[in-house]
């Protein structure tokens, strides 16, 4: 009972701090808007109505939250293992490419819908995993910063996809009018889950991923190894954990989950692959993961919040002309404040780590 109370108290404290971090981010963003000559209250109001004002708006919010949630979980896995996967954007596109290629392969076949969908998503998972494993390998074999390598790999993947789908490119639609792939067949599309809206089964998949990540991290040895490596790689190594292997597999898993998000996006939302499939989900999801405190339940809620922010800010740009990139500013601010406050909150733990000579890379 006493233990329960301590856990509850600790969670309340971190929830409060998260809330304060959000308020701070909103306040600073207000100043930024005032400097540009906009009315922040009007902006926030427009974001909220844009995100919840109608049935379609709500569906749109959930739709935007789906990739953010899956990628946020991907990033949480990596960050738990102290692998800073900043390249989820590239892994997302790798997955989207995997799903699109796989669908092309099954385009003419008469396989049952769920098999096609399953195979496409598996391909997406594998493609993302490969793209995530490379920075993991460079980190464990050469000690190269995974932040830099994963960012570079993102640029490479974006250019590669752009080459593939450019008008007349290798996998572009055959008429050669648009820089995108042909629309996927009906049997490969994810079913809708809410009548008369575009909300599809991807959202359910996202919730499943959250459950799977929770089970993995809390109930399996692999998850334990990831967390041990993240907390203190030196003592994990003394404890007999193969740090290099854990880093590679953690990054691969993280990339694979981000790739799955790309697959879900192609099969559920866009039905084709093109540049601009992601308006920066891979980066936004970093804020999602940290705001959710790398906890699957927390990430579900923070993804919904950012889904709302993305949907609402697009609406805001259309109705009152404030640039939608305000959402990006807000996300960066949230990131800064959340990280800052979490250091203050976990002072004792971090102090202990420093006393052991740990670094803050």
């Amino acid at each position, binding site marked *: 009972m006493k233990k329960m109370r301590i856990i509850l108290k600790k969670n309340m404290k971190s929830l409060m701090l998260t809330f304060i971090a959000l308020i701070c981010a909103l306040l600073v963003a207000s100043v930024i808007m005032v400097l540009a*000559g906009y009315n922040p209250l009007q902006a926030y109001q427009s974001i909220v109505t844009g995100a919840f004002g109608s049935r379609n708006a709500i569906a749109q919010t959930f739709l935007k939250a789906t990739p953010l949630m899956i990628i946020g979980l991907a990033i949480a896995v990596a960050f738990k293992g102290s692998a800073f996967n900043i390249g989820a954007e590239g892994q997302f596109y790798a997955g989207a490419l995997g799903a699109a290629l796989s669908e092309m392969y099954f385009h003419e076949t008469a396989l049952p819908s769920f098999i096609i969908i399953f195979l496409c998503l598996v391909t997406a998972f594998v493609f993302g995993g490969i793209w995530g494993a490379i920075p993991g390998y460079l980190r464990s074999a050469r000690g190269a910063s995974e932040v830099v390598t994963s960012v*570079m790999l993102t640029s490479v993947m974006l250019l590669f996809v752009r080459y593939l789908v450019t008008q007349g490119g290798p996998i572009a639609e055959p008429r050669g009018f648009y820089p995108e792939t042909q629309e996927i067949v009906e049997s490969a599309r994810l079913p809708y889950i809410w009548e008369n809206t575009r909300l599809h089964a991807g959202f359910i998949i996202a919730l499943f991923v959250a459950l799977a990540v929770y089970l993995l991290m809390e109930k399996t040895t692999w998850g334990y190894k990831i967390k041990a490596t993240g907390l203190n790689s030196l003592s994990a190594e003394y404890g007999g954990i193969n740090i290099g292997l854990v880093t590679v597999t953690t990054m691969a898993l993280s990339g694979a989950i981000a790739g799955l998000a790309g697959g879900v996006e192609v099969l559920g939302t866009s039905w084709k692959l093109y540049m601009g499939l992601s308006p920066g989900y891979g980066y936004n999801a970093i804020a999602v993961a940290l705001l959710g405190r790398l906890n699957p339940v927390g990430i579900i809620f923070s993804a919904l919040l950012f889904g709302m922010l993305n949907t609402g800010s697009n609406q805001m740009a259309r109705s009152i002309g404030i640039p939608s990139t*305000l959402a990006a500013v807000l996300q960066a601010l949230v990131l800064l404040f959340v990280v800052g406050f979490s250091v203050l909150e976990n002072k004792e733990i971090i102090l202990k780590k420093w*006393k052991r000579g740990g*670094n803050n890379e």
Partner: protein
Amino acid sequence: MSNFFTWAFILPLLQATIRMATPYTLAAIGGIYSDKAGVSSIELEGILLMGAFTGFATVYYTNSLWLAVLVAMLSGVLLVGIYAFMVVMLGCKSALIGTAIVLLASGLTNFYYRSIFGVSSEYTSIIPFKNFTVPILGHIPVIGKIFFQQNALVYISFILVFATWYFFEKTALGLECRSVGENPFAADTLGLPVVRLRMINVLITGSIAAIAGAYLSIATSSSFVENMSAEKGYAAFAIIILGRYSPIGAFLGCLLYGFADALQLNLQAIGINVPYQFMLMMPYIFTLIVMFIAGKGEKPEGHSKFFKKGLQIT
């Protein structure tokens, strides 16, 4: 193939190499100040973007290129001040704060650019820095053409390479900064103001790297494009490691990048038949190879070690 090896091809290529290397050089030289003092320079990309935007906006409003460089430096210092405060004083993880800084810079510059100039496909442009020939040096055959018929910021980057080398190798203050990076606790015992030195070094990083950003929008081009730094900041981070944390080494690394960029442009110009997307990939793949070769390099001993007065390592 024969036209590869004529002066008419090689001279402009080498001249372009220097021109294209300069943003990398300025960013890497800036980054060396914080790396030497033991603070990771993973936030460079964000400073570049910030400098590119504020520099461009200043020229747009005032038509003064030098004022623009100053404003860019100031904005770089302000932005990196957040990073310095959170990493050096609070002890946050530099990878996280660095990423946040990059995202913040990207969001802010896009937000203000769209607020001021609108969302149109036509770029607003300004009159950029012009090339001028340095007296005497500029008239040396070949070398003069390659090195001394460039714009003013290129010359500033040369001076900074030398000055930074001199500072860290030959001055007492430079030695103090290095010892803070090598072993902050020992430096503290010797009575050095560790936190203050680290803060100042990171702020210098911000001011120099911001010139690299401004170079992109007011020297090599005449307009600001969203996210125009195109990962040059991250490349600079890799170059510093490749150059073993030495200004001269980093400068050589930057020349390599400049050459790759220039070659890509020139090959396109003479119509080599490779899709342009693959050409654009080159610097990124190049960085991956660099990271593979250099690995984590020879970091200063105390790199990314947090220091706080009274904190004793047990």
